[in-house]
């Protein structure tokens, strides 16, 4: 596992945010590594543990608890659709189906929990809980970008933006 110098610098900087306990830097480090590598490998987990002078289990138990961390790659573009009440009332289940249809994702294949991937690895789709934008339901995120008040018709055009 290779950590580029720029990333190593950011990691060391972020640890300084926690002068009382280095352990507090666990989540930020996991975010940084996941952003860089796409997911958190066993090697990455051990690396974080060593960096923070902890046992790997102390890090693994975080990775397995927090829904945003993942131990295997998602699609090149990851889509999160809000599943919760206000979005569901506004059609988010149909929206997820539309994403699956247009991204050629089969809901039965390779799904861990609510996460599904297209065979070419280009897209993955996941249901997530309330994204705190219920007034503009239904909402979704594609990678780090946020989209509100979307309908099934917007889906092809949205996917086109992410190649």
């Amino acid at each position, binding site marked *: 596992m290779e950590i580029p110098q720029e990333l190593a610098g950011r990691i060391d900087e972020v640890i300084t945010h926690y002068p009382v306990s280095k352990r507090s830097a666990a989540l930020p480090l996991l975010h940084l590594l996941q952003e860089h590598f796409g997911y958190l490998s066993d090697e990455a987990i051990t690396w974080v543990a060593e960096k923070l002078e902890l046992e790997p289990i102390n890090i693994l138990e*975080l990775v397995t608890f927090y829904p945003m961390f993942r131990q295997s790659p998602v699609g090149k573009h990851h889509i999160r659709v809000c599943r919760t009440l*206000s979005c569901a009332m506004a059609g988010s289940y149909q929206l997820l189906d539309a994403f699956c249809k247009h991204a050629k994702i089969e809901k039965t294949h390779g799904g861990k929990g609510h996460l599904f991937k297209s065979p070419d690895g280009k897209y993955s789709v996941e249901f997530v809980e*309330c994204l705190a934008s219920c007034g503009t339901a239904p909402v979704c995120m594609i990678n780090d970008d946020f989209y509100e008040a979307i309908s099934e018709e917007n889906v092809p055009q949205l996917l086109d933006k992410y190649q």
Partner: protein
Amino acid sequence: MPAISRTPHPRERRIIFKNIDREGWTPDIDCYLKDGGYEELKKALNMQPQEIVSEVKASGLRGRGGAGFPCGAKWGFIRPGETKPIYLICNADESEPGTFKDRYIIHQDPHQLLEGMIISCFAVNARLAYIYIRGEFPLGAKILERAIEEAKGHGFIGKNILGSGFDLEIYVHRGAGAYICGEETGLIESLEGKRPYPRIKPPYFPAALGLYMSPTIVNNVETLCDVKYIVRIGGAEYAKIGRPNNTGTRLLCVSGDVQKPGYFELETGGVTMGELIYDICGGLKPGRKLKAVIPGGSSAKVLRADERYKIKTKRPDGTTVEEEIGIDDIRIDFDSLAAVGSMAGSGGVIVMDDSRDMVWALNNINEFYAHESCGQCTPCREGSLWMQKITARLLDGGGMPGDTDTLKSAADNIAGRTICAFGEACAWPTQSFVGKFRDEFLAYTSKNGNQQG
């Protein structure tokens, strides 16, 4: 994807949301400073910290994160002459379904939050503070980090702030998708780099024992913004806004089956449910009738449109009278919503019309709680899953005799038996939906040929 345009409604009183959607407004510090930003910080630094705490106490400000606990009283738990370091955490986890107010402050007016935070840190003598922001706000985290850099550049954060001798560092800490991180002790565990398992009470408040076993103040984003305004106008003036014991303004988030959902800043208790739904949100969709309202985030007990509530109201002459009111007449404030058996919670109002199936709605909510239980307490971990499985099988046509009562009893056996208030949060929807829409649940069990319910 139309960006939804939002002009403040005439009934609104925008204080905290003054700059939200304001023409020409940008989240950078220059814009904020041009508008008189950080003047309250300068004023606060010339006050005694204890004076600020007194003003906040006098303001009557109650926490906007959900529980509505008086902010000044919470701050008062910090012992004078405390020798341990004191921390302050801004709770920007915003994950209660139906709630979407903090998002706009974070994205559009980050300096208002920072100014409120710096003042609050000065008041309680915290020298290190964190903003715990939910992981799904990556842009919000970047905006806040930039705002912190800008504020440092102007000497508002860092060593010897504006020559006052007060030092403060603020950092942004991102969560990673778990609702329980909004519960303040779960949040603290998470910030310590652990699983966010809420802590056993007592101590009841992190102000006694919090982050790194030190006194810690946890406040919601909106609450901290209110503090800045209290410093501007004084606690007594602030207390004139809203209603006694329900002072100030509240950010209400309306979603669901109304014509114009959105966010509205209103004097606390300044409008009734009917005014909110029909006057401010344009009423229901054509041809639809109101069926139910969840008034304070998904955890709040549902209100049925045709319920009658007996409430006690205080007359101006001091006498109390008992009145019977309907849903339209409920004032939206802490005490009025508590009086009708629900809560103002986080300000998230979810409206449902007569096209909605209450078993479907409850199942959606149950799925949320089953997914989000942290799993520490057996009643919550098992019970939330049970409830979800029962509502799911009712919907699937596999309802069994007695399901309605089993559902209710599962909920009854969670509330009051758990480490944190998530237990109540997941039990209240089931208790209230089953209690108030029992027929709909029974209809599902009899669909399967079972009449007993």
